[in-house]
């Protein structure tokens, strides 16, 4: 059983998706989703423990050698991502039932869950596989599922958002696969570890450099690196609340994983960060995201859109940590992958709860909602503190690592930019707090109260985690720093 865990991690949601599609009715479909969602973290945590104790796990499908077949390869980095995605999936699943029932027509709910499981299967697959083309397959599975999830949003603009993402996502995937093709032509293998081995002698050849460029740009699209983020705000704003929560917490994070996997493990630190100006370009774009996207967030009138732009800005912190390419920076980036997943998950769920009760998340419609939904909005405030990076929240831990990493490099100006950009978060979070708490509730909110426990509980769990990992970051920062060390050491 233990030996088959890597396969189960992906196969289980795949079969769950099939089953949910076959039952066609909403309640059993939800039941299947719950079961799968609760099993996923068990598997991923077992894998993480195994990796920490015994080193990287290699799993070859059908006993084909890794050269020809598909190898699943799990080290600390992707074990961390598997844990993140599956745990988030388990925590948020209670939120789904009522929220989905309220936002999606009854006859499509089973489809929704089926596609949701497919999306999870894709994301976990991208993380777990050690094969470049297999990555592409899973990437497409998750992307196609995501398009459907977004398109199921009740607002008609959801269709446009899904279409926009479809175009952008396809361009990204195409770039990626072109890059992989070039690598295959040069190295004769699709196995990431073997590419990494063989690339050393040919790393300055033009096809390899071109492959690097194609892959970096392709993945950057998926992870919404500024300015390739334009698909994201609409997608998050118009998707069903539950889909937004899941995508915001996991989808971009998986793309980030892929990004670091290629930069650090496949191409290698020496080539990417020493010989090429990737670091410089990434830092410029990250800082632009931190300021630009965050500033745009300030002017949004729809809170979901605001949080979406904030995500683009926060991804800037993660890519900044990656670009610094030292231990503290990479740790900061990786730990922010976890922390930001928690923070944005909590925020989008809180807003999802508001939509569930009040039917809107436009800022003028939620005036005074703090007094009607005190628990939900208190959770929003605390998660908002996390976004700002107030000490005592998880967000601070990430920021601290990034500041120290900048000082390690002697770039005090960058440390200053990091703290300066977080002040913008004060503005956009403060704006919501002001409207929600210090305005008189309008009549439309009469009778609105906190959502039922199954919606509230996941929000509170996430908020608790935000505070807990801000006070004792031993687990998150510890894992992130181990992952960072593994990345810096390379695959070889």
């Amino acid at each position: 059983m233990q030996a088959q865990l890597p396969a189960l991690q992906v196969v289980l949601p795949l079969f769950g998706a099939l089953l949910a599609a076959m039952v066609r009715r909403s309640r059993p479909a939800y039941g299947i989703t719950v079961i799968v969602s609760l099993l996923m973290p068990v598997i991923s945590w077992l894998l993480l423990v195994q990796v920490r104790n015994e080193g990287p796990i290699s799993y070859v499908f059908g006993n084909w050698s890794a050269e020809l077949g598909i190898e699943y390869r799990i080290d600390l980095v992707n074990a961390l991502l598997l844990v993140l995605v599956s745990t988030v999936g388990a925590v948020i699943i209670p939120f789904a039932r009522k929220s989905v029932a309220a936002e999606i027509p009854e006859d499509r709910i089973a489809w929704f869950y089926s596609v949701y499981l497919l999306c999870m299967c894709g994301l976990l697959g991208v993380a777990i596989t050690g094969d470049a083309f297999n990555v592409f397959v899973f990437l497409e599975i998750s992307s196609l599922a995501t398009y459907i999830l977004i398109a199921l949003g009740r607002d008609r603009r959801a269709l446009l958002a899904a279409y926009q993402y479809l175009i952008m996502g396809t361009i990204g995937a195409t770039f990626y696969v072109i890059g992989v093709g070039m690598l295959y032509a040069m190295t004769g293998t699709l196995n990431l570890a073997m590419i990494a081995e063989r690339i050393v002698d040919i790393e300055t050849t033009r096809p390899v450099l071109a492959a690097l460029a194609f892959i970096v740009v392709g993945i950057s699209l998926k992870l919404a690196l500024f300015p390739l983020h334009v698909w994201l705000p609409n997608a998050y704003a118009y998707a069903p609340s539950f889909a937004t929560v899941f995508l915001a917490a996991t989808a971009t994070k998986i793309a980030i994983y892929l990004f670091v996997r290629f930069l650090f493990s496949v191409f290698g630190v020496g080539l990417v960060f020493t010989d090429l100006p990737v670091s410089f370009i990434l830092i410029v774009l990250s800082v632009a995201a931190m300021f630009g996207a965050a500033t745009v967030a300030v002017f949004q009138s729809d809170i979901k859109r605001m949080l979406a732009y904030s995500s683009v800005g926060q991804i800037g912190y993660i890519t900044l940590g990656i670009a610094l390419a030292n231990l503290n920076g990479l740790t900061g980036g990786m730990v922010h992958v976890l922390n930001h997943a928690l923070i944005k998950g909590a925020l989008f769920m809180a807003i999802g709860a508001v939509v569930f009760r009040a039917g809107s998340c436009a800022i003028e419609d939620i005036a005074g909602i703090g007094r009607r939904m005190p628990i939900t909005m208190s959770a929003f405030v605390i998660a908002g503190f996390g976004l700002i990076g107030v000490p005592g929240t998880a967000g601070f831990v990430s920021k601290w690592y990034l500041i120290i990493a900048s000082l390690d490099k002697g770039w005090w100006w960058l440390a200053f930019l990091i703290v300066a950009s977080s002040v913008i978060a004060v503005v956009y979070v403060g704006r919501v707090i002001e409207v929600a708490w210090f305005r008189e509730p309008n009549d439309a909110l009469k009778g609105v109260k906190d959502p039922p426990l199954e919606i509230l509980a996941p929000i509170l769990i996430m908020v608790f985690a935000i505070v807990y990992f801000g006070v004792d970051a031993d687990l998150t920062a510890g894992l992130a720093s181990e992952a960072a060390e593994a990345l810096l050491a390379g695959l070889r």
Partner: protein
Amino acid sequence: MTGASLIALALLIPTATSLLIPLFRERPNMREATTLVGAVALFAVVVLLLVEVMAGGRPALHLVDVLPGLSIAFNVEPLGMLFAVIASGLWIVNSLYSIGYMRGENEPRQTSFYVFFAVAIAGAMGVALAGNLFTLFLFYEVLTLSTYPLVTHRATPEAVRAGRLYLMMLLGASMLLLLPAIAWTGFTAGTLNFEPGGILSGKIGNVAMAGLLALFVFGTAKAAVMPLHFWLPAAMVAPTPVSALLHAVAVVKAGVFTVLKIIVYVFGIDTLAEAGASEWLVYVAGFTVVTASLIALRQDDLKRRLAYSTVSQLSFVVMGAAMAVSAGIIGSGLHIAMHAAGKITLFFCAGAIAVATHKTKVSELDGIGRAMPITMTAFLIGSLSIIGLPPLGGMWSKWWLMLAAAEQGRLFVIFVLIASTLLNVAYLLSIVARAFFAAPRGGAQEGKVSVNEAPWPCVVALSLTALLCVLLFFLVEIPQGMLLEITQTADPAGVSIDE
């Protein structure tokens, strides 16, 4: 009970109070009783701690390592002890006062008021007892965030605007300047712990040290050193108990306390004095003292006048610390206590006047002394203490500051002290003079004016703090002795103690 558990209790009691208060939402008497019990219990715990510290103990509590090198830990030393005693002691009086004020004014949402108040006190305790820069920063932000809803309590557009300024200035400065300063310190010194004699000695150049000090001082916007003082007058839209305890004692004192603590335990006064890195701060603080006093003179709104007076008085503490000499540190430490007692009295009086007569402007106070004799007498005592006349506590801090200035031959500081004292007289005693000697406006008759004081809890509270101003004159030995102790560890040569 061990020191560590006392520290834990000092943090837990106000936190628990804030959690219990909402349970009595529907029963105001129980709710206020909870606050009072919490306040008394906290004070008792703090006094127990004080006994231990005065016996030479240095209780410590290591709570948790957030990251390697970044921990939440507490370490009680005299300076923090002093601040904790002041904040927790005055919380009792202030809670009493709040009952009279909040009910007298029929304020809405009183439950959340008491909740956030208790959280703010927890924040102040954390700041006071913090054992390293990170812990201090953590609770400093708790204090900012928990007082923001108190500033915006009335939810009027004006209050919301003031709250915005408050949050942006305090949180903004702490993130933009204080956080990098802390990171820089940790990066250079390799530790964030407060240690006698400082942690930066020999690790940083003179110019860089002056820059780091600037980051700390301006990052701590709660100290209200100009030009980062605007938030304080704006915060006066809050209900008066908030202005009294938080914006005359806990929040602003947390600011100057932070500056003082950093100068003593991070830089070390000897290191600073050698480098001359705090020289500029003497002038900036002196400028703030005089300028804020001049502005106070021109305010007609009573609370705003008191707020500018606070800005001015806070910079005394900063100035004393910036002189980087033992007597200055003692003066600064004492001034935290003395000004707290004096200014909270003045704010209590201003609030009492507002509750009883709905008057908020100085120009409306003609003849009010006859209707509110107790209040205005207390106001006189508070004013005299701020001015620094014996037999009131305020005299001692100015005495030590003067001593420090004389020791170093700083004419500038002496000038600032004299000028500010004269300005104090002008902007505070003029109010008292109006109240007692001017004829009431609106052609009121000579002779009988019926006494119309604020609700009794208010009057009791302001009488108590006025009494405290007098008591401090006689009890100065206690804080002075404690402060001498820290300056002596910092400066082995010691200072001459004149009796």
